[in-house]
């Protein structure tokens, strides 16, 4: 107990008051740690919230269903329901139809309309009426007996400003129809799906509304307890061709895996901030320990044990970590709001539908962030603490000639550095652990570590070789700077390493974002070519299950004079477990206006078979995920039809939600018998005319003829392409923010580490002053040291950054998302930013230079 009070008292007297006396340094470090901790925690909380929303939605929708009967690329015939229900092992077989609809006269986003048979669905999904109709007698029975009736969630009712008994006009590409609201649901069970923006109607009503009489999206089964494998096989065997049994939990698990992979990726990026924050703790703690070397020696001389010294220095680090974590709370609260929207938006765009995400307090995440923050601070402070224990008590007395440290010259850093760099490349090609490119990240870390190890040897070389040219350029101070840098050895490695990390990350990020944008722009111009796009309203949301109504098709066909009409049909299918889109379109016409960016295969060789429908083109994502490529056979089952075609080539594609396969439309129609149109692209034949005006005129025409009774989605090609790019920019926003924060923390780190290096040699510098060097000359020397170190750091960082960018583009992106880009370097950005970084780092050296000459040399020497 006595020892604890002693320790605490000394901590306050020795460390506490010292920290207090330099509030700027303290604030810089705490801010850096706070940023790192805030970023790490907010990212995890944001993704956790999205994950919860997603899982909850899926679980609420699938309810207690054990299995679902699904069609491949087709809806399920409803007569299977009675057959399945008749099976002895089936407790209930419940049909399920859902579609996104809009409320007319409203700016609300589309919401989910679910159609079920309340009787068959009874034991699968839970929902309950909170209030009945105005006559207090409505019930689920009224849902069945009256067409065009529905039940709303309280959220939706409030948003639409309607209540029981009111009419709401629901809009779907097939028709706009009035629905009578029979009652409001209690906000529980199914009513919590999609953040509470949903409505329930009878299965008969929804079939009539969207025109899918005779078919349902799927049939959910609940099996009796004690069902055996044989029962399952019998049930599956009784299904017609093209329909399978699937567990609802598989959809959940696939989506969950994707989101968790994304979370891990972001966590690693945010850990970068945290680890760079470690630099900060290291620099401040070692700064303090270095500056007060004499005091520490005093303490030892007075009888303090080495354990006590170790504990005091270590505690400084821990205290910084705790203070940083506490400061992270307000920062994190702000950051998490932004991240919540951004992250859930990204997940919604790229992976699975996620809506109305709310943040919940998560004790385990908070404990995790506390643990990691304090843990990294502890690790960061451990080296200075250990070094402090080596201070001999006799340093309390000035004994001439016994000046301490010879800089540790770690031999063989060259070899270690090159070895790490060499290891990183083969490691990168290891397969990912699930969607998490573990090997990719390890090799990226090895790369950075390897390059950092090269900095002392490089500085040594720079110091020796450049010493004379330096004297020519900057005079004696520059020469001395070169000498110092040569001797400084591995003590500079950590601070230069911080700079290398920052520059490498910056360079690689710039290259990656640039390459991505360039490639995506190219893709958008070629594969998304088109002057005007027409498709059913909410087609994307509804996964292209609804075709363009016949009268719209007829009207469009009548416009064939000055436009080239390119109808297409899209199907969302799955290959094994991976989702993809099959698009059937007149490829010959498409190629005359746009094209594909090929990865494999040559267009001249594949033109003819492709246009004749004797082969398909698959996207890079599809090829990576399925393992198929040029020469392999692509197979799919669509209803009763079977497609079996060779893969003629692989192209770059950046659509979200999976891979893509293209085939000729006529061949598709012949093989499958599906002649409906999923959408249309329009191209103006005369490319020299005023395209914008013509597009507007076309849109007006279509609106007049077709959009009155059929809600349609129309977009000018230019707008569409801009929108696609905007979505990509948004998804990169999160990554960019995280890396910028890492850069900021690095900047703080560089400033403080440079200060450490100066203060360690305060006596030497003041001695120089005492023997006649002017303050300007000393500052100049410190400045040149900074120049050399920063130049070395930038140079190494640049090389490292180029290599790192290849990792990011060709390995990590490939493993996370399935795509790669064309490598592209924007010289302009570098020409501007690299000097900026140099300037910024040198500006960071200014405080260090100023520290040098605060007091008169003699006094400083005496006190030192």
């Amino acid at each position, binding site marked *: 107990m006595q020892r604890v009070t*002693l320790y605490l008292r000394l901590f306050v007297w020795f460390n506490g008051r010292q920290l207090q006396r330099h509030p700027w340094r303290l604030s810089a470090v705490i801010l850096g740690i706070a940023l790192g901790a805030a970023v790490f925690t907010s990212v995890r909380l944001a993704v956790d919230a999205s994950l919860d929303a997603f899982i909850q939605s899926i679980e609420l929708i699938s309810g207690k269903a054990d299995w679902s009967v699904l069609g491949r690329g087709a809806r399920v015939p409803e007569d299977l329901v009675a057959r399945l229900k008749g099976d002895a092992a089936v407790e209930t077989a419940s049909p399920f139809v859902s579609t996104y609809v809009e409320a007319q006269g409203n700016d609300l986003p589309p919401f989910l309309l679910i159609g079920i048979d309340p009787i068959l669905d009874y034991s699968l999904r839970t929902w309950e009426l909170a209030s009945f109709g105005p006559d207090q007698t409505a019930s689920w029975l009224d849902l069945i007996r009256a067409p065009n009736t529905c039940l709303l969630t309280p959220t939706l009712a409030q948003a639409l400003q309607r209540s029981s008994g009111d009419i709401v006009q629901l809009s779907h590409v097939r028709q706009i129809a009035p629905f009578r609201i029979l009652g409001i649901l209690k906000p529980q069970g199914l009513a919590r799906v999609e953040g509470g923006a949903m409505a329930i109607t009878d299965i008969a009503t929804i079939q009539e509304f969207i025109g899918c009489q005779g078919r349902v999206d799927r049939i959910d089964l609940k099996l009796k307890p004690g069902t055996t494998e044989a029962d399952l096989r019998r049930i599956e065997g009784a299904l017609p061709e093209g329909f399978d049994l699937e567990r609802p939990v598989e959809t959940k698990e696939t989506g969950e895996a994707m989101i968790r992979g994304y979370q891990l990726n972001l966590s690693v990026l945010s850990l970068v901030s945290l680890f760079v924050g470690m630099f900060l703790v290291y620099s401040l703690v070692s700064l303090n320990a270095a500056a007060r070397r004499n005091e520490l020696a005093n*303490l030892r*001389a*007075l009888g303090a044990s080495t354990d006590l010294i170790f504990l005091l220095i270590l505690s400084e680090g821990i205290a910084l970590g705790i203070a940083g974590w506490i400061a992270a709370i307000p920062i994190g609260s702000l950051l998490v709001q932004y991240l919540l929207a951004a992250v859930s938006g990204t997940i919604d765009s790229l992976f699975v539908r996620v809506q109305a995400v709310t943040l919940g307090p998560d004790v385990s995440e908070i404990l995790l962030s506390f643990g990691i923050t304090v843990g990294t601070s502890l690790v960061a402070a451990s080296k200075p603490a250990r070094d402090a224990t080596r201070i001999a008590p006799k340093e*309390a*007395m000035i004994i001439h000639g016994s000046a301490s440290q010879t800089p540790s010259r770690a031999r063989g850093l060259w070899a270690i550095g090159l070895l790490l760099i060499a290891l990183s490349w083969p490691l990168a090609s290891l397969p990912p652990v699930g969607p998490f490119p573990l090997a990719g990240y390890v090799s990226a870390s090895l790369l950075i570590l390897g390059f950092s190890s090269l900095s002392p040897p490089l500085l040594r070389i720079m110091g020796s070789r450049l010493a004379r040219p330096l004297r020519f350029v900057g005079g004696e101070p520059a020469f001395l700077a070169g000498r110092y840098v040569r001797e400084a050895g591995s003590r500079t490695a950590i601070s230069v390493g911080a700079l290398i990390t920052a520059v490498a990350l910056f360079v690689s990020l710039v290259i990656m974002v640039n390459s991505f944008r360039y490639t995506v722009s190219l893709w958008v111009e070629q594969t998304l070519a088109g002057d005007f796009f027409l498709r059913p309203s909410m087609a994307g949301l509804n996964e292209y299950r609804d075709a363009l109504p016949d009268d719209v098709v007829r009207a469009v066909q009548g416009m064939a004079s000055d436009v080239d009409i390119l109808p297409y049909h899209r199907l969302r299918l799955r290959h094994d477990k991976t989702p993809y889109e099959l698009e059937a379109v007149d490829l010959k016409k498409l190629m005359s206006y746009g094209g594909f960016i090929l990865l494999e295969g040559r267009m001249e060789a594949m033109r003819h078979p492709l246009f004749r429908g004797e082969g398909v083109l698959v996207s890079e994502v599809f090829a990576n995920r399925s393992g198929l490529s040029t020469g392999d056979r692509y197979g799919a089952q669509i209803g009763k039809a079977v497609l079996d075609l060779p893969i003629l080539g692989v192209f770059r594609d950046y659509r979200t939600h999976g891979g893509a396969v293209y085939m000729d439309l006529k061949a598709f129609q012949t093989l499958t018998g599906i002649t409906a149109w999923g959408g249309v692209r329009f191209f103006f034949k005369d490319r020299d005319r005023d395209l914008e005006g013509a597009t507007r005129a076309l849109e007006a025409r279509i609106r007049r003829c077709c959009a009155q009774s059929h809600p349609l989605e129309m977009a000018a090609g230019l707008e569409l392409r801009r929108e696609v790019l905007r979505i990509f920019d948004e998804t990169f926003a999160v990554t960019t923010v995280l890396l910028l924060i890492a850069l900021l923390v690095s900047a703080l780190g560089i400033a403080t580490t440079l200060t450490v290096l100066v203060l360690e040699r305060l006596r030497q510098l003041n001695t120089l002053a005492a023997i006649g060097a002017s303050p300007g000359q000393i500052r100049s020397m410190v400045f040149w040291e900074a120049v050399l170190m920063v130049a070395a750091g930038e140079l190494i960082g640049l090389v490292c950054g180029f290599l790192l960018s290849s990792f990011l583009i060709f390995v990590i992106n490939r493993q996370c998302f399935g795509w790669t880009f064309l490598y592209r370097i924007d010289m302009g950005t570098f020409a501007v930013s690299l000097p900026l970084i140099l300037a910024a780092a040198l500006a960071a050296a200014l405080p260090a230079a100023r520290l040098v000459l605060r007091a008169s040399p003699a006094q400083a020497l*005496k006190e030192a």
Partner: protein
Amino acid sequence: MSRSDDPCVIEAHALTRIYPLENGGAVGIRDIDLYIRNGEMAVIKGNSGSGKSTLLALIGGLDRPSRGRIVVGGRDLTTASAAELTAYRRTTVGMVFQAFNLLPTLTALENVCLPALLAGMAYETTRESALNHLRELGIEKLADRYPAQLSGGEMQRSAIARALINNPSIVLADEPTGNLDSRNGEIVMRLLADLNQRQGRTVIVATHSALADPYATVQITLRDGMIAQRTPCNG
């Protein structure tokens, strides 16, 4: 008490401590034999680089010899462990330094209490004792000031109070007047002599100034790391 009957409290045989230099040379002390009796006021004289501070460091347990032996108060410091040396520094010796070596973030009073606290004493009792020492040295009113607010003489007097807080039998002073003007230097030296004459502590002063001469009972002169002369004074 009769000093001549007192046994030697500090004994060194062939004491050697060498620091090799990068250019091949070496500094330090070599083959020193030393006997200092209890209650003596020994003054070690010599120029810079003669090894005075090195010798003092060895006596104070701040350093270990390269060769030879040193026994203080019956304790062989050569074979003592690091922990034992730490305890020795806390309890048996009190040190006064040329640069005062007060911790700048502690008040004068806190600085004085420090060795006692390190030795495990309770703060309340230590505080009382520290105030007494400060009172005896005439600087009680400066108890709550930080070293930056004290003059050189005030700092050194605080340092002396600190050296005494654990009631050590031996007081070592390394150039105690080196950073003081002549008036403060005299005051400090008289205080040190007082510790020896009135309180009977063994005081060893390493200095090149002549201020200590009137009070010394034995003078040891070092040159180039070896004892050049050992002069017992009268008394």
